């Protein structure tokens, strides 16, 4: 145990002392802060698009309704700014676009150096109303707003013509059903708390995947460096293979979980400050029913299984190029769970996910993602036992492979690899 801890401590310190560690520690919070800050700033600072609105219909009933809708945006900010046409417009709707072209294409600017985002021309009469939209931005959301307002008004006109009173129409428009989500488990109203396990399960599965990917990558590179710099033989003469293997795995796990711990702490603090209700619900979900221990079990077993595989592969390679050849099949395997994880969020009990839960290499991801649906106990126990047996087998093989690889020289082909695994040296 003494040697295992010393090896783990050396691994941990070796990585913590690198610039890369601190960069990766800061990368996520800084990146998220930048993304959130930038999108918030863009949202707040972006001016409402300038629009020209021409209502050529008899009575011009649509124009004021559309203008009112645009003036009433989220947070009291206008959705769009209706401006006067910068030039006298012809009466032919089709000619209006040509008249406004220099402003619509940005060759000329409106007052305040703003670009004209679009021109809406509502024309026609009766039930043959048309909306011509002149814009070079096909994704402009204002178009849908205009269509919805005009469509609603046409519907009201038809109903009024059929004898429905305007007062009744207003009352009818105000009618809305009360929709209530109920949880079948608690028979009570569903809240965010009911949806959280699914989200947390999905998040935990993705977390496990990223921990394996980053942790195993660090391990692989570390072992390759030790192999190429001939340190492994010295280590093997000073400690047992399990001490070296688990020491390295523990050390790198420490590195990975330090980063996650810092991120988690920062996230928890921020959530408690800005969304204390959500933070409380997350805490209830994780602590209630021992879900946190369920996640921890799969996280530990999954990490151990893949870390052992990657460490053993590293022991056979002196360069990352050599490692890539051996890693190919493992990387393909690791991408399969990701494809299915998003399914687990919506339909955690689909047969495909249940079947994949029984494949030990996928068990940690699938069972973590399925946590929300409360898989049957026999499935939890069965897949857990199968996975633990596989972990034990993988660790045993990895130990032999590590020893054989550490003492080998030169390139190892597949036949040589199998022979060394069978011989253990």
């Amino acid at each position, binding site marked *: 145990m003494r040697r295992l801890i*010393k090896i783990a401590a050396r691994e941990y310190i070796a990585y913590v002392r690198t610039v890369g560690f601190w960069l990766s520690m800061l990368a996520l919070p800084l990146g998220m802060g930048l993304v959130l800050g930038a999108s918030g700033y863009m949202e707040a600072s972006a001016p409402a698009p300038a629009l020209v609105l021409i209502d050529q219909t008899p009575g011009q009933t649509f124009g004021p309704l559309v203008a009112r809708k645009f003036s009433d945006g989220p947070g009291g900010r206008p959705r769009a700014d209706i401006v006067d046409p910068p030039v006298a417009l012809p009466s032919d709707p089709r000619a209006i676009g040509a008249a406004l072209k220099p402003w619509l294409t940005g060759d000329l600017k409106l007052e305040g150096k703003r670009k004209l985002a679009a021109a809406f021309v509502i024309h026609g009469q009766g039930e043959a109303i048309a909306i011509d939209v002149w814009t070079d931005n096909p994704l402009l959301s204002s178009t849908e707003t205009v269509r919805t307002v005009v469509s609603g008004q046409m519907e009201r006109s038809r109903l009024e013509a059929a004898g429905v009173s305007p007062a009744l129409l207003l009352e009818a428009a105000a009618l809305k059903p009360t929709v209530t989500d109920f949880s079948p488990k608690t028979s009570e109203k569903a809240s965010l708390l009911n949806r959280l396990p699914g989200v947390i399960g999905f998040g935990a599965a993705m977390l496990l995947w990223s921990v394996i990917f980053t942790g195993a990558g660090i391990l692989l590179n570390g072992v390759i460096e030790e192999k190429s710099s*001939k340190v492994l033989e*010295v280590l093997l*003469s000073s400690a047992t293979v399990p001490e070296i293997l688990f020491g390295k795995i523990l050390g790198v796990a420490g590195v990975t979980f330090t980063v996650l711990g810092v991120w988690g702490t920062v996230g928890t603090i921020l959530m408690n400050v800005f969304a204390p209700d959500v933070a409380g619900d997350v805490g209830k979900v994780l602590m209630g029913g021992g879900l946190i221990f369920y996640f921890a079990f799969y996280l530990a077993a999954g990490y151990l299984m893949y870390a052992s595989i990657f460490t053993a592969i590293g022991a056979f390679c002196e360069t990352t190029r050599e490692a890539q050849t051996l890693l190919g099949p493992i990387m393909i395997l690791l991408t399969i769970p990701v494809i299915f994880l998003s399914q687990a969020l919506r339909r955690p009990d689909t047969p495909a996910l249940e079947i994949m839960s029984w494949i030990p290499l996928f068990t940690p991801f699938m069972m973590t993602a399925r946590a929300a649906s409360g898989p049957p106990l026999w499935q939890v126990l069965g897949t857990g036992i199968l996975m633990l047996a596989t972990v034990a087998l993988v660790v045993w093989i990895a130990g032999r492979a590590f020893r054989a690889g550490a003492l080998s020289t030169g390139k190892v082909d597949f036949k040589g690899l199998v022979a060394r695994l069978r011989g253990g040296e």
Partner: protein
Amino acid sequence: MDAALSLDHVTKRYGDFTAVNDLSFAARQGRILGFLGPNGAGKTSTLRMVLGLSSPTSGTLSVLGAPDGRPVRDRIGFLPEERGLYRRMTPVEAIVFLAGLKGLPAPEARRRARQMLEEQGLGAAQNRQIRNLSKGMAQKVQLIAAIAHRPELVILDEPFSGLDPVNQQTLESMIRNLARDGATVVFSTHVMQHAERLCDHVVLLAGGRKAFDGSVAEAKARAPRALVLEGMLEAAAAAALPGVAAVATAPLDGGGQRQTCALEAQASGQEALKSAFAQGLDIQRFELREPSLHDAFIVLTGTAPDQMEVAA
């Protein structure tokens, strides 16, 4: 005196290849044993079995009383043939870490590391990263790391390879000091001169088999003395001298030839030389040479001299 290390009919096979064949020898406590042989003779395979890094196919070992080095690894110091240290560590950190694995507490390991680095002229380099040290300096650091915990058995696999003559002398001195302090030192080499200067006991290995096991003097006694004659003389004339068993001829740069005459066991070099002068042979230089361990190795193993490397 008890044996710190003994092998009894040890064989190691890798598939169809026999790396070590029925090898038996013992290294006595507090002595320096040279484990000699050309590259590929089975030296590293043997040392790995001693350390417990691989298992013998047959035969038994005793390492400080244990069946291999694993149970007593804290009492063994090992310098592998292929050297390596963590490149981003400083010498002190590397020594403290490796000595720590052998059970030496960190404060004591740090004290010894600094002292030993100073003694080896590496005091100024003790806080530089190993990747910034020369190969010779890094090799010294690794040797210090192997012995900082004061092991009872020190195993050095080709410790002199890659070192310049000055560092080779320094290393020889360190090995002598280890033995003087009571450690048993086993080192492998294919350079006979180091073994000749250092060893109490040598084991010669060729093709995985033991060719000789005894003292340096006993090994050298197996090789013939030689009379070396340089001048304008033919090999046939040299071969006809009394007591000469065989002659090896080599051309000299300035013209003429060197005739190295191997003498028969009871022959007198003086008589052969007298006879040469009496015959009026053109001799510009002569030397009556005692056999070296290198000569002994050739006789004992049948390995051609061009398969051996000459010491720097």
